[in-house]
Structure formats: structure tokens, C-alpha cells
């Protein structure tokens, strides 16, 4: 069972994953297809390179070879035949990282495993669709790496995964399983659509759901308590409703040991405080997801050094956030309040893709008080550190996989778009260069690259530029 518990360890893990992809035939199949096929040398030239939020290279160049960043600097020696992409007005940043995404989920029924309340033994990677459109849209917006967090329908949910939004298909999965997501709030109650009081047939898994926050916390506490009891070698006293299934217990124990990071989605102040309280009982550190009311618990978060993945920003809650009444006290100032208080904070767009994806979140965070560097850190280095992939993502440095974005101007400006997106050395998006941002009329949407095999004239303009292996079909 533990074979699949991916133990956290930076580069080692990356290497381990690549190696553990095992047998040669499978690897051949993985690399032999799709985008991995042709990865030549690329030289990106731009007016400015944000190597990381604290290091800016004016007028720099990046050399990409074999999917890796080989050189970053004022001038790099380009090998013969290298593709040169020159954007003098552009800026280069590392590909953005969304540390709390729902990309790749398909049907709603698929997300929730109703069999148990604690499903820490399940893995999100088993059901997300890596070919889902959401990934394409995210890549197009400049988001290259996401943590797909489990659905909020279970009190203790499944293990999330770190995946690339595009690029070579053999490198799409960065971490098959990383972290377990718990939810404290209304959603496990609300989403248990089958939750109802037992009638004639007594309690079954259909009636197992907690229907109050009290019940929810009881399930949470009972799960970890049982795991602890098992770890001590004895059997828990009662193993009825709310007890974790045997399969889940090793994972809970790993959380207790700190081998698997715990993430808790909590929005309302009361839920955040509850999360802090119950994890304190077991001494489990955790990362707070969503955290709409984090500004009301700043002191608690700072004292316990609880990192926050905040977002999305909004001014009127919608969907479950609205219905649940958990997000009514949203504040524009929360990101800057958290940062100013010394809380580690990453930004997330969660379920928003396309126009409202991470760059827009960063843009609004800036509008609401962050500096550009803070915003950049909150979507690159901070989430990378929270996902423990800081050695392979989040900054532009030699030796890392080439996940880069060339923006048409300063990143996160509303008039800036992601012009070129490189994931794992593959160009997944490339918009034609604009001579200048203003004064030129009528170039909008004329970046028509044409699609092979599709009838032309049917659509007149495209936005996304070249992308993906499907173009080749």
C-alpha cells in the first residue's frame, strides 16, 4: 500500500518519479507520442526577465535545451539552429503555479466518493482528465503547473496531484500523490446529496454523512484518533460510523507523522479556527486552502506559521461560496493583510480558468494592495515552496525544467497577455509578436495559425496560437 505514498523530497522526488515510471516499453510509449517528440533548442529574448521575484535581469536571454533551462543571463550563446523568440517589449517569468486547482475534474458525480467519509487512500490523479480543456486554458493563460486538490465533498478527502498543464506527455504528472485534503465547512454536508436520516433500513453509507459542523468535526477527530490508536498497536474502542476504513489508516498515520502534508479547506472564520483547534489536538501542521476569512484569524495563522493558499478573489461570492454563506465577509485587503502580517500566502484561482485564471488573480491582488513582486511571488515561488517543488518550478534558473511565460508587457497588467508559454521545453502557446501595444489598429485576434485537417474559414480568428499535440492530428 505504501508503495504509492510518494515521500516528499524535492529533486529526489522528481528523479524518483521519472525512474519509477519504470519499464522501458511504457516510457517509450509515453515519450514517443504527443508533444514530447520534438524539443529543439529555444532562445527566449525579452526586455526583462524576472528570474525570481527578487532578481530581475534587464534585457536578458534564456536558453532552453532538451526541455531544460540551460542558461539565463544578459546574453547566452545560442547553439546552431536554435529557435530564437525575440520579444523586446516582453517580460519573462517562470510559469505560474496554482496551488489549489480543480482542473481536470469532469463530471460532478465523479468527484465525490460517497462510500466513505475519509478517503485519504484515494488519489485524485486516478480520475482527473489530463486532456481536459481546463488545462489548455490554464496553459494559455500562463499557468504551467497546478496542484489539483481533491473535491470538498468528503471530510477527509483524497490525495491531490501536482501536474503540468501541458508539455511533453511523459512529464505531465509531477507528483502522482501529494497531500491530503480535508474540508471543514459546509461543503461536505451540502455535497452529500444522499445524506439523509436513516429510515427503515438503518444507517448505511448513504446516511453516513455528517449533517452539522459538529458531526463533521467528529468525523475528522475520530479518523485521526483511530489512526493514532492503531499506530499505538491497540484497536480503537468503537469502529462505527465515522471511523476511517482500514485502507485509509496508513495514510492518516503518515499525516500524523508529517510524511503527507495535510491541507484543509476552510472559508469562514469559525471553520478556520476549528481547523486550527482540531489539528492542534493532534499536532498536525497544515496548509489552509481558500481561506476567505483568513484576515480575521491573522494572529492565529501567524503564530502557528500556517501557510495560506488564498483565492479566488471576488467581490460577490458565487456558486457554493454564495449558497453556503461562508464567503460573505470577503475583503479585498486579505492578501495584503496576510502578507503584511508575515503569513505565507499563495494566490489561487481555484475553479476559475481562462480569463479569470491566476494572472487575473495576481492582477487584482496588486489592485488590492500587493506589489508586483509580492504578487509574482504569490503565484510562483510561494506555491512552489508550498508544494515542495521549489527546485523544479517557480523561478527561472539553470538546470530546471523549462516552464516559462513570455508576457507581452509587465506581468499581470490588464493589457498584458501571455504571448509565449513554454512547458517542459515545448512551446504550447505562441502568439505573433506585436510591434507595439498601442497605435496599431486591427490586429486583434488575427493570429490565425490555421488548423490542419480542419476546414478553414469556419472561424476567422484564433487566440491561443499554436498549441498542443492535437494540432498534429
Amino acid at each position, binding site marked *: 500500500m505504501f508503495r504509492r505514498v510518494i515521500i516528499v523530497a524535492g529533486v529526489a522526488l522528481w528523479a524518483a518519479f521519472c525512474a519509477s515510471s519504470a519499464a522501458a516499453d511504457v516510457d517509450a510509449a509515453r515519450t514517443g507520442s504527443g508533444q514530447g517528440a520534438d524539443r529543439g533548442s529555444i532562445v527566449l529574448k525579452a526586455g526583462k526577465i524576472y528570474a525570481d521575484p527578487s532578481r530581475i535581469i534587464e534585457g536578458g536571454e534564456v536558453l532552453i535545451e532538451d526541455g531544460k533551462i540551460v542558461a539565463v543571463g544578459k546574453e547566452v550563446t545560442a547553439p546552431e539552429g536554435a529557435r530564437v523568440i525575440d520579444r523586446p517589449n516582453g517580460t519573462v517569468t517562470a510559469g505560474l503555479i496554482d496551488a489549489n486547482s480543480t482542473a481536470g475534474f469532469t463530471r460532478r458525480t465523479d468527484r465525490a466518493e460517497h462510500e466513505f467519509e475519509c478517503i485519504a487512500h484515494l488519489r485524485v490523479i486516478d480520475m482527473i482528465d489530463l486532456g481536459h480543456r481546463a488545462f489548455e486554458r490554464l496553459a494559455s493563460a500562463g499557468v504551467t503547473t497546478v496542484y489539483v486538490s481533491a473535491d470538498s465533498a468528503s471530510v477527509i478527502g483524497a490525495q491531490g496531484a501536482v501536474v503540468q498543464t501541458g508539455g511533453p506527455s511523459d512529464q505531465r504528472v509531477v507528483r502522482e500523490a501529494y497531500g491530503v485534503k480535508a474540508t471543514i465547512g459546509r461543503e461536505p454536508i451540502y455535497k452529500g446529496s444522499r445524506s439523509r436520516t436513516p429510515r427503515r433500513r438503518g444507517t448505511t453509507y448513504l446516511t453516513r454523512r455528517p449533517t452539522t459542523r459538529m458531526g463533521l468535526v467528529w468525523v475528522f477527530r475520530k479518523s485521526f484518533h483511530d489512526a493514532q490508536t492503531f499506530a499505538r498497536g491497540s484497536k480503537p474502542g468503537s469502529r462505527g460510523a465515522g471511523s476511517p476504513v482500514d485502507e485509509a489508516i496508513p495514510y492518516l498515520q503518515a499525516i500524523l507523522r508529517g510524511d503527507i502534508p495535510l491541507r484543509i479547506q476552510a472559508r469562514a472564520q469559525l471553520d478556520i479556527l476549528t481547523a486550527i483547534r482540531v489539528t492542534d489536538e493532534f499536532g498536525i501542521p497544515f496548509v489552509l486552502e481558500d481561506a476567505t476569512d483568513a484576515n480575521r484569524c*491573522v494572529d492565529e495563522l501567524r503564530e502557528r506559521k500556517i501557510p495560506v493558499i488564498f483565492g479566488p478573489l471576488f*467581490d460577490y461570492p458565487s456558486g457554493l461560496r454564495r449558497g453556503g454563506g461562508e464567503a460573505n465577509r470577503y*475583503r479585498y485587503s486579505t492578501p495584503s493583510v496576510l502578507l503584511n502580517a508575515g503569513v505565507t500566502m499563495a494566490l489561487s484561482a481555484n475553479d476559475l480558468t481562462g480569463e*479569470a485564471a491566476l494572472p487575473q488573480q495576481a492582477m487584482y491582488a496588486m489592485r488590492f494592495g500587493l506589489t508586483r513582486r509580492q504578487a509574482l511571488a504569490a503565484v510562483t515561488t510561494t506555491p512552489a515552496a508550498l508544494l515542495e517543488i521549489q527546485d523544479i518550478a517557480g523561478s527561472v534558473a539553470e538546470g530546471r525544467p523549462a516552464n516559462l511565460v513570455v508576457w507581452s508587457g509587465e506581468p499581470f*497588467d*490588464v493589457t498584458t497577455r501571455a504571448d509565449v508559454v513554454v512547458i517542459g521545453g515545448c512551446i504550447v502557446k505562441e502568439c505573433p509578436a506585436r510591434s507595439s501595444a498601442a497605435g496599431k489598429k486591427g490586429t486583434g485576434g488575427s493570429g490565425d495559425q490555421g488548423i490542419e485537417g*480542419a476546414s478553414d474559414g469556419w472561424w476567422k480568428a484564433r487566440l491561443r496560437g499554436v498549441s498542443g499535440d*492535437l494540432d498534429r492530428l
Partner: protein
Amino acid sequence: MDGGRRDCAESVETWTVCRTGVETMRRCTLWMKPGGGSRPWGRLFWMLAAIFTAAVGGRAVAQTIVLEGGRIIPVSGETIKKGSILIRGSKILAVGKTVEVPFDAKVIDVSGKTLFPGMIDVHVAGLGLDRPNENVPVAPFLNVYDAIDPSLLFFEDALRDGIAVLHLMQGNDCVIGGLSRVVHPIGMTPDEMTIVPDLAIKIAITPKTGFDRMLQMATLREAFLKFADDMERLAEERYEEKLRDEKKDLDVPPAVARERGRALIRDEDIPDKDRNLLLLTRGKLPAFIYCGRAMDVPRAIKIAKDNGFFERCVLVLGSECYKAVDVLKEAGRPVVLDAELIHRETDPITGKEIETFVPGVMDEAGVTFALQRRSGTSLGERYLWYQAARCVREGISRAAALEAITLRPAQMLGLGDRFGTLEPGKDASILVLSGDPLDSQTWVEKVIIEGVPVYDKAEDIRLKKLFATPEEELGGAAGDADEKSPGTSKPAASGGQASTRKTTTEKAEEPAGDGSHD
């Protein structure tokens, strides 16, 4: 030049402001009105008295204002890096690097700020209204006037977002909808908000709920045919009546009788419910025609041409309508684009998603377009400046993008001579911005509507609340304004009273989700 006459004219204008813009003024007016007969100078007297009273009372009213030292983006011309605007009453008197500052002018220093015309939301489909969609498919007799809910947070948000003019329309879920109204986002009653009443009529080509396309078109055609029929019959009846009165026998064929009778139709003969159709078909009422799909566009044009309102129609388009760009180009009518600027479609062969930037297509074809925002959506597309900035992002010229949220919508509403640019003679509908209108870091700092400063960011209680620090939050100083009952918020200083008043009436935390929005 004859200053006396101008003053007079301006005062009358001021009266208009009172009536339409600032309700305190209106109350003063009403209160003082009983003695003031109908003669213009009498009214003028009372007006001046009202202004005086208001000024003494510390109320903000239309006055002479100079906005000095700001960067002016007039939309109509070159940006003035450092200039001033002279406002008297509700009008802009002068715009330039320097303007003559009258002795009575209140000078507002706007150095470092950007002055921009108030943005115009040209097609508010159903928002700001309580239940915007009528069940009756053909309902030209309706009027959004009766549905406007000034207490909605929607209007306050619009003001905060720099929208000075809103064209409130019935929702798209109709066949022939009611009359629309152009309003300011400020005022306690629809009357106070009104700029232009009964401006246009709404027609939808895309089927109403429960209708298919054939039924929609059949209903639409039938409505116009029946109206034409009724008019013919009425004409004939009138002619016969006339003959009867003259004790003559009918001596001409029906066609001639109808011809002769047409002139005899009196206004009161026309049934109330058809009156707007009469105006529409005579080209006296503009129509906003909603086309959700490209296939609706030629049908919309045909209906408009057949019934005589083509020259006065504006097409409101869904994002797919970019496919009909050739038809739109040939028609030459202005269009309002969907808030979703990117059309997404699955390629039926490869299964890949195709994205098209709709304004880009329109811009390339030279179709005059205005941008819409999507009310209710969180951030992003909610703002007109954001929509314009997206256009610039995708390569549309800055001038065209700015026009699409100011001048072009004003022209579409037939108000091009009053709104949309910063020029002498136009209404003083001005935004004081902290920076460039297309910069995401820019905030609307002040809004001046018809010469009255109605919004001040510094006094915006709701915004303060959204930016509350934890101390304020927990101390409850500014944070809990929403939890308190209306009317208990702290009194505001002069200049910001409008927004204060609005805030006290807001429904706590209730988003502007006021009914369905197609």
C-alpha cells in the same frame, strides 16, 4: 457674449439637475414650489433660492468647478498631459491646458490624476430592475421605469466602477419588450435618476424561453403585421366616419379610403398598447435588437428594414455573431458586443477548442462596436475599463477601445452630443481616476455627474469595508457597517453625501443578483 442669457440657461439646466440628479435639490424645489407659478422667471427665482438654500445647507449642488492640473483624456482628441476643465452647472465650459478660472469657481486640484469621461453602459439587460422579463411575449407597452429599483447595490457598484450613464433595458427574454430608460446611477427614485426616459424599445430575435426560432419570428412578424392591419382598418373607419358626418356615401374603393383615412387618425384612436409600435415603425423610436446567434443577425436586419426602424436600430450581439461580420459590415449599424469577448467553440473535427476574440473581428471589419460588461460576475468582466483593456491586450488600438466604452455607446443612445467625451458644451460627466483608465491599478476617485460630485472614494464606506485592516475588522470601527441597520453609518462631509446616502440604503451584503439576466 451675452452672459445674462447664458446664466439663465444654465440655471434652468441646474434645475434639470435638481430634478434628475440630486434628490435633495428636488425636495427643496418641491417644497418651495407652491408659490412659483409657471412663468420661467418665477421658476428661475425659486431655483436660485433652492440653490442658495442647498449651498447654505452644505449640500453639493451644481456649481462652477475647475478641475485643475490633471491629465485629461478627452477621448475626442489628443490627451492633455496637464490641463484643466471648467464646469459650470451641468456642462463643461472649457477644456484645455489652462482655463480661465471664474471668481466663484470651486477649484479642485487633480494633479496627478486622470480625467476621463464617465463610462457608459449601453445595454443593461435586466439589471437594476426588479424582474426584468415579462411573460407576455409582445409587450411594447411596458416601461422599465416601473421596474427600476434604485436601492439596488447594482447602481452603487456602477458608480464606484465609473459608470455614469446606464441604459436600462428589459431583459433579452422577450419578443418585443418595453421602453428603456437612460439613467444615472444616482438618485432615490427612478425620476431622479433619469437622463432620458423611454429611449428605445427592446426586440429579441433569439427565442424567448419556451419559444423556438420559428415561433419567435412568427410572433414578431405577426405583431408588426397585425399592427399594420389595425392601422389600415382604423384609417378606413375614420374615413367612413368622416363621410357619415358629412352625410356622404362611400364612393371610393377601400384602398383609397384607407389612404385618405390615414391622415384622419388621431393619437387617441391608437390603442395604448400599440402606441410604441407606431413610434417604432415610423422611425421615431430606436430599437435595440438582441441577436444571440449569428443566424439571428440577417433576420434582425430584415425585420428592421421591413418595419421602418432599420435606420434607428442597434444590434446587441451574442459572442457567436462574429461569424455574421460580413452582414454586419454591410448593414453598417452599430453593434453592442457580448460581455464574453472570447467566443469558444469546439472544432467539430479535431475536438479542439477554438477561441476567437470577437472585438478583433469587428474592429478588423470596421464595424462600430460598444463594449458591455457582465454584471454580477466577480471581478474581471464586471468592469468596462477591464473590457476595454482586454481589447488593447489583443491588439485593438487604444483609441478604439476607449471609444467603445464612452463615445460610441453615447452615440448609439443618441446622446453623443451630451456624453462620451470631455468637450466644451457636453454634460459634465467626468471621472477623476488615480491613473490611466486601462491600468488595473487605477481607481475611480471621484465621479462628477452633471456637474455634481456624487462619488468620492475617500468617502466610500463599502470600499473602506472591503479594504478593512484586521484591527478595523475586529474593532468594528469601519468593518461592520453592513451589519448595522441602515441610517446608522457615520455622517459624511460635503461632497461625498451621495455615496453615503446610497450606502445606508444598501441591502447588507446582498449582491446585485436581481432577477434573471440573459
